[in-house]
């Protein structure tokens, strides 16, 4: 399994925000996670990316990773994008992407000087990969501009490029379409839809159900901190408990 989360539980005082969730995402699989507001989706993502303290166990790309250690989880191959994009505004776009490259080797002043030829070689390879990642999201021509100058939608795309340059085993995308217009959402769907073919598994939480349906071949429905349904989208939407918990809202939202 590319991502295996078992018995994930997050408590805020007496509130069980996530109440023992098991979720496995296979290689090249794309899973959508949906559920009403407050059902624990974001908290679950925060737990498996190490942002909030949680109980349970986590495996990324077949390796066990301790919960609560965001850096270690990222290095193990789990990349994430955020509901509001978290780019480094003072750094240029390409620097944002370079930071997340899978080659994390960095040396101090002395090391950089002593090993400078090897360092320049690594740098050139990193730049090539970073430029390719920017090109994929259509930001190659903005590479040298500070990330802070990008529009909201472009910041999202930059964050996506940064998540993907490290060739992660799995991408966790938290509301990736929030704040995007229809054209941008279509572009996002194309980029996310391409991931399984490139060997990147996907776990996506989004309110736009059409987007989830478009990119995911499996849907997990959450309610009150638990998984209440898990299966192919068409089948999941038909289940009574899902209709009751979620699809009523969907109909209302579409009206």
């Amino acid at each position, binding site marked *: 399994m590319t991502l295996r989360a078992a018995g994930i539980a997050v408590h805020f005082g007496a509130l069980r925000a996530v109440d023992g969730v098991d979720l496995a995402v296979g290689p090249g699989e794309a899973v959508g996670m949906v559920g009403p507001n407050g059902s624990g989706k974001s908290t679950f993502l925060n737990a498996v990316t190490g942002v909030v303290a949680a109980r349970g166990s986590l495996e990324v790309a077949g390796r066990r990773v301790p919960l609560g250690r*965001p850096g270690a989880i*990222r290095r193990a191959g789990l990349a*994430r994008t955020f509901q509001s994009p978290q780019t*480094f*505004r003072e750094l240029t776009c390409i620097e944002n992407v370079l930071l997340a490259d899978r080659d994390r080797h960095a040396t101090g*002043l002395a090391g950089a000087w002593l090993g400078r030829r090897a360092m320049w070689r690594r740098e050139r390879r990193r730049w090539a990969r970073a430029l390719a990642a920017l090109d994929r999201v259509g930001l190659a021509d903005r590479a040298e501009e500070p990330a802070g100058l990008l529009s909201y939608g472009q910041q999202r795309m930059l964050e996506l490029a*940064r998540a993907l340059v490290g060739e992660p085993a799995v991408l966790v995308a938290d509301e990736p379409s929030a704040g995007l217009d229809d054209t941008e959402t279509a572009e996002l769907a194309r980029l996310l839809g391409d991931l399984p073919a490139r060997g990147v598994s996907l776990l996506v939480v989004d309110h736009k159900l059409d987007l989830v349906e478009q990119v995911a071949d499996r849907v997990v429905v959450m309610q009150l901190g638990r998984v209440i349904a898990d299966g192919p989208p068409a089948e999941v939407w038909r289940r009574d408990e899902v209709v009751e918990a979620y699809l009523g809202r969907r109909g209302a939202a579409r009206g």
Partner: protein
Amino acid sequence: MERFVSLFVTGVAQGAVFAVVALGFLLIHKATGVINFAQGDLVTLGAYIAIWAATDLELPLLGAYAVAVAALAAVGVLIERFAYAPIRDRSIHVVVISTLGAALVIRAVIVLWRGTSPTRLRGPLGFEVVEVLGARIPKQNLLIIGVTAVCVAALWLLFHRTQFGRQVRALASDRMAAQMQGIRVARMSMLTFGLAGGLSALAGVLIAPTRAVTVDLGFGPMLYAFAASILGGMGSIGGVVVGALAIGLVQQLGGGYLSPDYAEVYPFVLMLLVIALRPQGVLGSEVRARL
């Protein structure tokens, strides 16, 4: 004219030393958000280790300088391990007080080890002078300016052209987001404390030949370097260097043309003016809240 040239070069040289110390401040501040107030005593310790290596070990001068820089890099890492890492998650005040504690320990160690009587460190050029536009300029001052220029260029390359530099800047931009990108925060803070320690030693061996060496050697440079960091907006290498040079020049030109009695005060008047008129620093950009 001779007087102006002489004051100007001395001011730039003084400012250059402040800049080296201030770059140490900047590095640590960017990577950890902390101001390391042990920086001044590291300057002093660097000078004393160079004196020890040159006189007791009888190493050639450049060898003694290298020993001082390497030793202080190690001391920087030790400070990180013992005075910073254990309390990293505490409030910034606690951490800053802890660096002050480290400063007092270093100071006490110096006094116990070398005593309190003033001593000297030779410069590689002795007391040679060179005439520039009629003014007699100590070659040591030109050496200070040259070494600092190389140092600034090297740090700029490190910051903007290497993965290490990008990681430091990412930490300065958003610590949590940087951690989420897999940047090894603990390793980065160790490296920057080490590098800043080495820079302090460099400042120490540069400035020591121009004055008597006492346990207070690094105090003035640290104070001015701190003022320079504030002038420069604590953000960029360029800002810090401009701030440090401005302070060195104001001190020397003010002391030379206005009144030498207040030479120590002029830099702080400049600092207060900048804080009042341009709180983000000379080259700093306005602080914007994140949406």
